[in-house]
Structure formats: structure tokens, C-alpha cells
């Protein structure tokens, strides 16, 4: 199997991640932060170490790293937990449904209003100007993805952060496709809330997500319950991360995520990013000579990304992915849970075939893919 669906979840995971999960389950699988015995303390320490490693990687305080089930859960907490009645929100035209749907639901409930700023494929300046034009007096948050999960478009996060600074508008970033392969620095990029999955570029297990936030954000919890702290009060703790972490946290997942972060550090974010973007460049070149292949390149000036979307003329994206699967190649086709992206860029009819690479993919994987895609494109009866 050639796995090229790393945008959905990375596979394989590093051996160190598997080992960390196994050790957490078999050696110190007690409930972290809930008791005083040696095993629970060790479990709690492991959770803290991962928390601190993530805080260092993304530049925020370790007590402002809250573990969630996944990135969607983090985004829901950021959106529902920070917005209030009468707020106006701006989201980008490349948002995943995990941003669009909670925002749209709050609009339907009569709580907020929202607008969508169009991300111009080839101009950062126009993108910024589109966003700026939508800011109103009651705009309280701008929510945007760092990298489009459909087209690989890299949004100008640092520039948006700079634009919003000092305006009293929360800047919420969905880093689902960026973390682990793109630089994200909350402090330098003026990001107030960063929502991440643990199981994609950060190489952790599924069931791990992260809500990172700075002092300007005070998200309210969506879940209430036991936190192992302030137990004799009926009130949810008002301090973080406990405020957002009711119920037992996913110790094996968090231990694995910690090992994933160590893996990225040892390989180097820059090296991973370069290797992945080189593979995408190779694919882009190979696709350019395949008859009927249409690549959706919605890039700003520096096309450095780990994913690419395309279609083959006369074939639905699902058909192409199915044929590739028969050859042992895992691709993602369809609409990638991104109504807005397809609607905004005209790919709603066929969706797209998405190739997303990870740290373990090689040039040979891409060459094999291109070989079969050429066959698929040439064969009318396939």
C-alpha cells in the first residue's frame, strides 16, 4: 500500500509513538491527575511533559494547552466558548466544515452573524483587503485555516495576525493541515487561539486534539464535570487547563502525541516541510504531462505545501481514487468536508482527488502514483 492520505491522518506513525502508547497502557496506565499513588503521578507527569512540549512548539503557556478529542472539538470550544450573542465573525472561503458548521449553527440560532472573506489564489494583498473590508464594529473574531485541506493553499496567517492586532478581534486559526509541516508561532503570528489535531502532522494517535490559547482568550467549557481539582465546589474550575478538561484525558493518546512531537523535533520541522513540498512539486510536474489532468493550484507566492488536488477530465474524483485503490494507492476523493472551498472555487461538481504526503513518503511513491494516474487517464473504459 502506498499511503497518500496523510491529510486525513498520518500513516504510518513513528515506532516511538507506538512504543509510547504501549508503555502508557501497559506500564503506567493510571488516571492522570486524579490520585496520589506513583502510577497516577507518573501518568500526570507524562501528560504535563506533552503539554509543555506543545507549548514550546507553538509558543504559548503550558497551562493554556487543553487536550480535546480532536481538532473539531477544539474548534467548537473556541467558537461556542468565546462568541456571545450579537457578535460578528469573519471566516475564510477555504474553511473546513468544522469551522463553517458551528459558526453557521450559531447564526441559525440567532446568536451571531458571519461573513466569508475570499482567499485570492495569487494575491496575499487582495486576500487581506477582502478580509479588511468585512470588519465591522461588532466583529469579535476572525477564524481561518492556516492551510486549505482541499487545495493546500497557505493562508497569510502572520499578515492576518498583524492586521487584527490591537483591534480587539480574536484571531482563531485552524491548524489542522499545517501543524507538523508548517511553522506556526502563536506569539509571533499574533494568533489568539490555535486548534490542532494530534493525529495528523503531529504524528500522534487518533482521539487527540488541542486547543491552545493566549491570555486574550478565555474560552468557556462545552463540557462540565470532574477535573481532579477543586473537587469540593459545585462550580467548574475557573483556571486552565482544568476548566476545559472535564473527564479522564486520553493518556495513551497524549503519550503518543508527546512522542510524535519529539519525532518532529528530531527530524526538524524545516526538513519535513522541505521534503514534503518537494514531493508535491514532483507530482505537480508529473501531472502536467498527464493528458486531461487538471491541477488546482490556488497558491500565493510561495507554493510550499504537503498536499495537492487534481481531477482527470471525464472522470469523477471518486472514480479515480477507487481505481488508484485497486492498485494499492490510498488517495482521498470527494469534497473533503469543505463545502465552502468547493463552492468558492468551482469544484463542486466532481470534488477533487487529493494527494497528501507525510514524512515517510518517498519520490518512488509519487512516481508510482503518476505511472498509474497516467494509465487511468489514458484508459476510457476504466
Amino acid at each position, binding site marked *: 500500500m502506498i499511503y497518500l492520505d496523510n491529510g486525513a491522518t498520518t500513516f504510518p506513525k513513528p515506532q516511538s509513538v507506538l512504543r509510547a502508547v504501549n508503555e502508557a497502557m501497559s506500564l503506567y496506565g493510571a488516571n*492522570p*491527575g486524579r*490520585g*496520589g499513588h506513583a502510577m497516577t*503521578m507518573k501518568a*500526570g*507527569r507524562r*501528560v*504535563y*511533559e506533552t*503539554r*509543555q512540549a506543545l507549548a514550546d512548539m507553538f509558543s504559548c503557556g*503550558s*497551562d493554556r494547552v487543553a487536550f480535546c478529542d480532536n481538532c473539531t472539538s477544539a474548534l467548537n470550544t473556541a467558537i461556542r466558548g468565546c462568541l456571545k450573542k450579537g457578535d460578528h465573525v469573519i471566516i475564510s472561503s477555504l474553511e473546513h466544515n468544522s469551522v463553517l458548521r458551528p459558526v453557521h449553527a450559531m447564526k441559525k440560532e440567532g446568536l451571531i452573524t458571519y461573513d466569508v472573506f475570499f482567499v485570492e489564489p495569487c494575491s496575499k494583498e487582495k486576500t487581506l483587503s477582502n478580509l479588511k473590508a468585512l470588519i465591522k464594529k461588532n466583529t469579535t473574531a476572525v477564524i481561518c485555516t492556516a492551510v486549505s485541506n482541499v487545495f493546500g493553499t497557505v493562508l497569510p496567517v502572520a499578515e492576518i495576525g498583524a492586521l487584527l492586532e490591537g483591534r480587539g478581534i480574536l484571531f482563531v486559526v485552524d491548524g489542522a493541515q499545517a501543524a507538523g509541516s508548517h511553522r506556526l508561532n502563536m506569539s509571533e503570528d499574533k494568533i489568539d487561539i490555535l486548534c490542532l489535531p494530534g493525529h495528523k502532522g503531529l504524528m500522534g494517535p487518533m482521539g487527540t486534539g488541542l486547543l491552545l490559547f493566549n491570555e486574550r482568550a478565555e474560552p468557556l467549557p462545552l463540557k462540565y464535570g470532574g*477535573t*481532579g*481539582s*477543586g*473537587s*469540593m*465546589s459545585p462550580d467548574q*474550575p475557573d*483556571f486552565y*487547563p*482544568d476548566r476545559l478538561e472535564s473527564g479522564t484525558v486520553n493518556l495513551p493518546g497524549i503519550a503518543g502525541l508527546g512522542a510524535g512531537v519529539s519525532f518532529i523535533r528530531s527530524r526538524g520541522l524545516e526538513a519535513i516541510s522541505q521534503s514534503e513540498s518537494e514531493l508535491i512539486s514532483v507530482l505537480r510536474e508529473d501531472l502536467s504531462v498527464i493528458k486531461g489532468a487538471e491541477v488546482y493550484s490556488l497558491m500565493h507566492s510561495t507554493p510550499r505545501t504537503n498536499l495537492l488536488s487534481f481531477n482527470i477530465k471525464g472522470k469523477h474524483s471518486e472514480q479515480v481514487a477507487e481505481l488508484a485503490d485497486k492498485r494499492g494507492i490510498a488517495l482521498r476523493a470527494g469534497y473533503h468536508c469543505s463545502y465552502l472551498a468547493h463552492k468558492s472555487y468551482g469544484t463542486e461538481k466532481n470534488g477533487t482527488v487529493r494527494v497528501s504526503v507525510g514524512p515517510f513518503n518517498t519520490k518512488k511513491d509519487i512516481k508510482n502514483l503518476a505511472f498509474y494516474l497516467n494509465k487511468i487517464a489514458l484508459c476510457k473504459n476504466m
Partner: protein
Amino acid sequence: MHYTYIKFENQTYGEKAVSVLSSNGIKASLRRNPNPNHKQGCNFALFVNGNIWDAYDIITRSHIKNLGVESYRDRI
């Protein structure tokens, strides 16, 4: 036996304090608070190998949220 410790609301703050103290050359161990206040419920106690007030000063200057210094006498 008489014990003095720095109290934290959760293990996160306590572990952070251990780490900060360690980088200042002070050894400390974090445990579940053996003498919790019934109004506050569960929390954590940091036992310092050295002058507790020096440690407390470092922790406070590092903006690590804590519930102050507390003492208790072991009745066993």
C-alpha cells in the same frame, strides 16, 4: 513530623514548578496534598529540598499559579 509545602490546584502547575525550580538548581517533589482543606478539595503539594521561601519566590516570580505555602503536622 512537621511538613511545609507549596500548594497547587492541579498537577500541571505543580509539575511546571518542579521544572522551574530544577532549572534554578532546587530539587522538589510533587505529591498529592496529604492534608487537603475540605473546602478546596483535592490538590497537590510540592515538597522542596531546601529553603521553601526561596522556592516560593522563584515560583511566584515565574507566574506559576499556586495556593501559597502551608504546613501540617503528621499525627501518625
